[in-house]
């Protein structure tokens, strides 16, 4: 993994993904280690982000490294019309690794071709967000003790949600059963379902959470955006069907954990937060450990 870019979750094999998760466990036990003291990490956020950027910067700081970069495109030369190619070519000479989020799909792959230092994709448009996938895998393993043979429900916008696509693809390596809960307009695309079928795994599709909530190990919630609907009336009709409330958790499995990539709007009612099955804030914290492990591996310091 040393010096390699991470653009798409499939750039790393199942074994490589598992080795990152294993290393992340050691950072969870001991997060502050000065192993990146002589390293500079650039965080280029052409698009706003709270969790991803801050958890990367926190990861670098706890490892003793320095962070340079910008938090939105308007404070960089992009606002003067600089091409992505030129921005990357410049920044790679100032840093040992680049973490990048960009609104266009494919930007991270392109950056990895022009850069002389490794690129970690922190989200390229609606395409990939592999570090979110790694932290989701880590969280699932942490709460269930394993990744294999689980029943996992995905709820909400399964059509456009990049975290869902990458996570489904990654879980295809672990013999999981998929329960897909979404409005008809936002079903999981066939390009992702192909991966499930290729591994001879099973998926079921539903239109309401109640149909499946009682029998799953993980409930992965996502936000439904109004602008995804061609007919606003349709959105008004279905929006309340995809809100999770505490009362709905009564007859669910003891080991059930609720995950969400955050930010949430109203799809998880705040009365769920105090339930011990709610796990989305812990999930966000895991992002730091997983990113520490990834940075350490790619920079070759462990």
């Amino acid at each position, binding site marked *: 993994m040393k010096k390699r870019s991470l653009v*798409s979750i499939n750039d790393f094999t199942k074994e490589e993904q598992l080795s990152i998760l294993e290393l992340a466990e050691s950072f969870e036990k001991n997060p502050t280690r000065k192993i990146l003291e002589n390293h500079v990490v650039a965080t280029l956020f052409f698009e706003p982000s709270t969790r991803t950027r801050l958890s990367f910067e926190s990861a670098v700081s706890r490892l003793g490294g320095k962070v340079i970069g910008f938090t939105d495109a308007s404070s960089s030369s992009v606002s003067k019309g600089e*091409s*992505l*190619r030129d921005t990357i070519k410049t920044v790679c000479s100032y840093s040992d690794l680049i973490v990048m989020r*960009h*609104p*266009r*799909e*494919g*930007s991270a*792959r*392109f950056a990895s071709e022009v850069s002389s230092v490794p690129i970690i994709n922190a989200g*390229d*448009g*609606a*395409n*990939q967000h592999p570090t979110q996938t790694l932290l989701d895998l880590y969280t699932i393993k942490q709460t269930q003790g394993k990744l294999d043979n689980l029943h996992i429900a995905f709820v909400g916008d399964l059509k456009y949600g990049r975290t869902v696509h990458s996570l489904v693809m990654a879980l295809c390596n672990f013999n999981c059963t998929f329960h897909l809960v979404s409005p008809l307009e936002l079903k999981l695309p066939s*390009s992702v379902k192909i991966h499930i079928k290729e591994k001879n795994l099973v998926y079921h599709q539903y239109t309401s959470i109640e149909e499946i909530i009682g029998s799953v190990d993980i409930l992965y919630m996502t936000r439904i955006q109004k602008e995804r609907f061609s007919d606003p009336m349709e959105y008004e009709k279905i929006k309340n069907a995809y809100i999770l409330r505490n009362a709905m958790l009564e007859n669910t499995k003891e080991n059930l954990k609720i995950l969400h990539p955050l930010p949430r709007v109203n799809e998880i009612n705040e009365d769920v937060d105090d339930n011990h099955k709610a796990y989305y804030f812990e999930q966000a914290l895991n992002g730091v450990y997983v990113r520490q492990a990834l940075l350490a591996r790619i920079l070759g310091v462990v």
Partner: protein
Amino acid sequence: MSESTMKEFKVSAIENGTVIDHIPAKSVFQVIKMLNLENFNDQVLFGTNLESKKYGTKGIIKVSNKFFKSDEVNKIALVAPSATLIEIRNFAVASKTVVQVPNEIVSIVKCFNPNCITNHENIVTQFNVISKDELKLQCLYCEKITDKKTMVIK
């Protein structure tokens, strides 16, 4: 002269070079463009909307003194999957091959995804062909699939 010879000569014969036959009539001009024949200096003869027993209508292109390398010509399979490549030497057929969709497509196709980085920076497009029959091309950059319906040739 028999009927079949008559048909053959609707577009004059060439002494040496390549005949590209069985091109869908509507794709003839696209093939000319893809092979950059607009800038070719020797004779180029073509016909379109010709009768074809197999396809109803067809187009044909004859290029004098030019023999194509397979990777040079296989890209036309995107618009003319049934095209036959006939090498002519001394007015006689020297070889006949059917074009094949290559495994990778570089540069000639535009990614259909308007938000793909290749449509916003100066980048040579690259696709992996994931289905030759249905013509599904996966963009190396945005990973979206361009297909027959959405394909635009640059």
